[in-house]
């Protein structure tokens, strides 16, 4: 067997170990192996299909290739040519191959290996798992860069914590790895390496001073919070003292002022020693007062309260420090505690003024009598009449029609244009049906040639635009909205039930060309509403000619609530209905005969009813806002609507696109939104809904509240502006909003502190009188809870500050009860302030 044949034999089973042993016996054989590689260029190309069927190839072939390259190439070529990333996957680092390859690398010598690792170090392909034995055995220098350290961290993270010490002690390069770790940007809390190092200090592997010095340098250099948290863990674990810090007390003061809170919290107790003297304590107090962390303020206060502090430092120093702390804090409880300490030490009550505990005596600004500016949003405009003959069948209308049929522009933005186009065609078609049919066939011809089920159905309708074609499409749409059919060629918009309603109504109109004189439901205003007078006029002009049932239903949905007495205006009118479905279809048989009678019944019942909202839990999909409604229309008419249009149970997520469909139900657009979404997870639609100036209910207030308490500033700013528009329009329903707030509070998804900021903004913008009832309801519910929710103190504090502006304020019983109860929480304190402030006579 020649050498090439021998390599073939190794390659048959990808015997890497055998190949390496064979090459080591005779250097000439390496050349044969190289020749073999050159003759099989595609053998090592990444091929997942082959990987599925040939596992040996997948696991072992990259090693086979690497072995030949590492045995022959220069370090530069080896670094570039070997598929290091493929070798390092966990499944390939098992067995004896890696160690065999490492043996091979060992034969190349220290210099060669050093050069290879230097080349690999800047990349992420320098595996700790692969190279650490080599570094150990050949006593190579630990490679610089993040990759090697990252591999070390990965090894640590997969090792149980109780075995870390063993692992790092067994690694001779640990000091250098720690050094590289500290110089890297890999410091993070998981795994927190630094707090685990003190045993190494105890064992003499790491020098305490060096380690502390490096860590403190990081802190002084403004390292990231995660890194500083690790340093804080180390400082705690090492039980650091002032003597460990390079500049002693002064250095600690600098750290206290500028380090991350986690580090400062470790440093503070070192400074709070009675023996340190006045300046140290006062400087520390000034630093702590300027920091946001409440825990450190409490630590300082506890220190000041100790009798030994007063005895050693002198009462004057304690008083000075407590005054600094109390006056520099917005925290009413802390301020009160500081003031109490000062009073106790001085015997004077003058310092009570430092604490905002008494009733607020701010001058009145007249905020109650102000009103927020009225919004200046767009006002709905009348919709122009459908286009005349020449325009109706022009290229623009052809585009609108095509877009309407394919669902690409069938949504709210352009729907009025499409509806006007179709209405124009129907009107022209009454006198020139054949011409219109020809034009429609030509105009929509290209769009119906689509792949998939919808394309076939549209094409069938296109060739035979009669009842049978319509029935096929009707059936298909019914399956589409239920998500049972996946048609990749289907425009996504048609999956929404509102868009499918629009498609079916368009096809219904085109199917009635020559018989139907016009459309009933074309909106009369740009907000998609339809005036009852316009509808009655249209019924009159029909003069006994038929209308489509879906068109009639759409017209009713767009009417909104109406005055029941107007039903008399329809007496004496008749409106036959023309089913787009075959005469034998069950829906045709149950269809009402007189559309005018349907309208009369609808109007007599008051028109469109409001929906009832309730949470609906969808299996595997969480809880959503669901709705129920009973429409005053015959079931035979409602049956023509696409499934799920008016039934939340069948159509759980299809709230989109309802604004053109039922403009008087802005809430329904929120249907398909989460129930009580977390802060900031609101729908962007809430803006459009609120600005529509139509009444809305729980789901919209839910979305609004979610936005008002969003974590991001810009979301909150946007929501406050929206809320102010609502308040300026005097459409804010405090009761409904408070009801949602109650639900959200109970579900712990209403950060009261953030909502208080929104209240503050609304009040300062002149809406105090409109938000105060809402604030009262919030306070009432918060104070009723067995455990007051977080942020209650913020709410009560704001109310106490603003209550002087409120004429004859009446406090909810829950607030007065909380104020009367014994307790030392901030909420208790603020409740007392609020009640006291409310009692101050005007």
């Amino acid at each position, binding site marked *: 067997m020649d050498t090439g044949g021998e390599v073939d034999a190794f390659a048959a089973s990808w015997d890497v170990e055998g190949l390496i042993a064979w090459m080591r016996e005779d250097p000439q054989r390496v050349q044969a192996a190289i020749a073999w590689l050159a003759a099989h260029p595609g053998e090592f190309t990444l091929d997942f299909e082959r990987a599925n069927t040939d596992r040996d190839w997948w696991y072992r072939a990259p090693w086979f290739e690497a072995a030949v390259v590492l045995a022959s190439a220069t370090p530069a070529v080896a670094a570039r040519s070997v598929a290091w990333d493929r070798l390092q996957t966990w499944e390939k680092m098992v067995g004896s191959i890696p160690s065999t390859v490492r043996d091979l690398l060992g034969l190349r010598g220290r210099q060669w290996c050093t050069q290879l690792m230097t080349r690999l170090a800047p990349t992420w392909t320098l595996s700790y798992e692969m190279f650490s034995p080599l570094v150990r055995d050949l006593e190579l220098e630990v490679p610089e860069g993040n990759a090697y350290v990252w591999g070390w961290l990965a090894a640590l993270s997969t090792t149980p914590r109780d075995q870390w010490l063993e692992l790092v002690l067994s690694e001779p390069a640990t000091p250098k790895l720690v050094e590289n770790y500290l110089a890297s940007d890999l410091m993070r809390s998981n795994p927190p390496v630094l707090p685990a190092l003190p045993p190494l200090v105890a064992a003499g592997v790491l020098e305490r001073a060096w380690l502390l010095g490096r860590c403190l340098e990081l802190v*002084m*250099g403004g390292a990231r919070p995660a890194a500083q948290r690790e340093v804080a863990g180390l400082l705690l674990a090492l039980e650091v003292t002032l003597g460990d810090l390079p500049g002693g007390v002064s250095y600690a003061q600098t750290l206290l002022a500028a380090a991350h809170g986690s580090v400062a919290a470790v440093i503070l107790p070192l400074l709070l020693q009675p023996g340190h003297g006045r300046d140290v304590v006062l400087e520390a107090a000034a630093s702590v007062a300027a*920091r946001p962390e409440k825990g450190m303020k409490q630590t300082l206060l506890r220190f000041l309260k100790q009798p030994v502090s007063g005895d050693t430092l002198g009462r004057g120093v304690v008083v000075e420090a407590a005054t600094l702390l109390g006056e*520099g804090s917005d925290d009413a409880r802390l301020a009160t505690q500081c003031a109490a300490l000062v009073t106790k030490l001085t015997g004077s009550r003058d310092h009570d003024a430092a604490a905002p505990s008494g009733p607020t005596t701010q001058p009145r600004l007249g905020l109650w009598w102000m009103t927020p500016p009225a919004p200046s949003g767009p006002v709905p405009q009348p919709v122009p009449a459908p286009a005349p003959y020449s325009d109706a069948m022009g290229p623009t209308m052809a585009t609108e029609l095509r877009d309407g049929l394919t669902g690409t522009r069938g949504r709210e933005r352009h729907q009025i244009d499409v509806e006007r186009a179709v209405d124009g065609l129907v009107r022209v078609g009454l006198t020139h049906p054949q011409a219109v049919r020809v034009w429609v066939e030509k105009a929509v011809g290209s769009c119906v040639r689509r792949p998939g089920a919808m394309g076939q159905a549209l094409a069938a309708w296109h060739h035979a635009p009669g009842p049978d074609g319509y029935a096929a499409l009707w059936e298909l749409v019914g399956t589409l909205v239920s998500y049972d059919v996946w048609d990749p060629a289907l425009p996504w918009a048609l999956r929404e039930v509102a868009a499918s309603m629009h498609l079916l109504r368009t096809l219904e109109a085109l199917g009635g060309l020559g018989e139907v004189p016009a459309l009933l439901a074309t909106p009369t205003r740009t907000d998609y509403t339809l005036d009852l007078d316009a509808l009655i006029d249209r019924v009159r002009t029909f003069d006994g000619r038929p209308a489509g049932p879906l068109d009639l239903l759409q017209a009713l949905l767009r009417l909104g609530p109406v005055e029941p007495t107007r039903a008399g205006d329809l007496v004496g009118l008749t409106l036959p209905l023309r089913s787009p479905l075959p005469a034998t279809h069950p829906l045709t048989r149950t269809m009402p005969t007189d559309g005018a009678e349907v309208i009369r019944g609808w109007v007599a019942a008051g028109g469109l009813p409001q929906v009832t909202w309730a949470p609906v839990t969808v299996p595997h999909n969480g809880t959503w806002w669901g709705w129920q409604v009973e429409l005053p229309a015959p079931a035979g008419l409602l049956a023509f609507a696409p499934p799920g249009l008016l039934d939340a149970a069948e159509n759980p997520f299809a709230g989109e696109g309802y604004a053109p469909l039922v403009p008087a139900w802005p809430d329904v657009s929120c249907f398909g939104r989460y129930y009580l979404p977390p802060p900031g997870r609101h729908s962007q639609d809430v803006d459009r809904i609120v600005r529509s100036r139509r009444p809305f209910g729980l789901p919209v207030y839910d979305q609004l509240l979610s936005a008002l308490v969003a974590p991001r500033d810009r979301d909150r700013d946007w929501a406050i502006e929206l809320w102010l528009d609502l308040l300026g329009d005097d459409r804010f329903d405090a009761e409904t909003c408070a009801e949602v707030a109650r639900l959200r509070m109970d579900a712990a998804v209403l950060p009261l502190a953030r909502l208080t*900021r929104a209240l503050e903004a609304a009040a300062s913008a002149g809406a105090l009188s409109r938000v105060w009832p809402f604030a009262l309801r919030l306070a009432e519910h918060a104070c009723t809870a067995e455990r007051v929710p977080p942020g209650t103190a913020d709410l009560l504090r704001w109310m106490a500050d603003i209550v002087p502006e409120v004429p004859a304020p009446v406090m909810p019983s829950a607030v007065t009860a909380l104020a009367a109860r014994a307790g030392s929480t901030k909420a208790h304190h603020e409740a007392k302030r609020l009640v006291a402030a409310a009692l101050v006579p005007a």
Partner: protein
Amino acid sequence: MSATYLRRSTWADDELGLQTAAGVTPTGRVAHPELFTGFLARPDVAAAGLLAVADVAASRYADAGQAQRLANLDPVITASGDQLRLESFSACNGVQARLDLLPDGIDSGNVAFGTTNVDVNTPLRTALAGMGRDALVHVAVGDEQLRISTPEASWSEDKVALPQRWVRGFAEVPAVAAGTSPLVELTGPAIARFMAGLPRGGGLLGPRAHLEARSGLKPVPRPTSSSITVDGVGRLRSAARLARFATALQVRRGAHGASVWVWQLPGARFTLHLSAGAYKGFSGGGSLLTLLADPAGQASATTLLGHLAWQPRLDREHLRSASGLASAAVDAGLAWLAASGRVGFDAAEQAWFHRELPVTDLQQALTDHPRLAGAHHLVERGAVTPDGERAWSLAGSRGDVYRVVEQDGVLVCDCAWACEAAAGRGPCKHVLAVTLSSTAPRSAS
């Protein structure tokens, strides 16, 4: 624009030696000038201030992905006979920090005149952090003996370079500072309350916040007539090192969102200039570009230059009488000098001060401003044509035509940049080109 230090700055044996790079003094360019030797009244305050200035230099608050990564740049120090000023810019150029060591903060010693860079290295930062209030520290900015003893080679190979972003920032900040008006002054515990109440989150840059002056700069949800909006409140955090020493905090706000924050300290003053937006560096401004293109202003400035003498407060009346220029010419000359980086503006004292940036090609750095260069290019290719009595047309390189008209003595352009991004950022290149073409009045939008 680079130089070397003779050795690293150190603090050892109660001797704080701040090493200087090449600088400018009344005698001209000096390799390593000695600007101060003496003792400070409050070394702890000075050390914290120097650390805060260095913090700003090492910080990148906002990164639009365009700025070259620059860290640990060394502050620029200006000695003015009785006080020292240390200045730096953040890497994103949206923050300028300045520490003024005032006469009552200098216990004894000799303050010379001149401007240069000082080395602030990592070991020195550690040492400075440990400097206590009662430490008796002799401070030397520049080391005459060292310079004499090692006249040729640099002990350290560290190179210091003043990047063009800094140079343009130095030119822009005085105009911004001079255009601010006082909003509020906090004293005593209110400063701590303000610092503790700054909104958190959003990384180093921090969130945008509206701070209400009437309630002690408390964050409010919406801007009001008495609030100041800070885009990125994290940009104020470098002052945390000094907050414990602060006796007063003065806040000034500019018309387009820029602001000046001055912390009064014992014997010192720390000033932060914040640009109008977190992602709008000072170097990208150009509010004084028109002045740079004005030969009359340049002539006045040249006359004034000989009378500046590194004064810490330039007295306009004195300059007028000494130079023989009219008041308006003095103002124009000072503005030109500010635009060329030769004078700074002290918002706390409402006074200009002299400094000479330690760069050899200062004028080139400023006139290389992309907008000014673009304007020169337009003029050179004859793109500016009069279009009516007070209007000009400019042919763009892609066939667009822009129209600049004079409205109420101000040139206004209809280009997209002028319409959308110009607020507080100076004139567009079309307005500059019209100004340069000498057919228009010397004013700009």
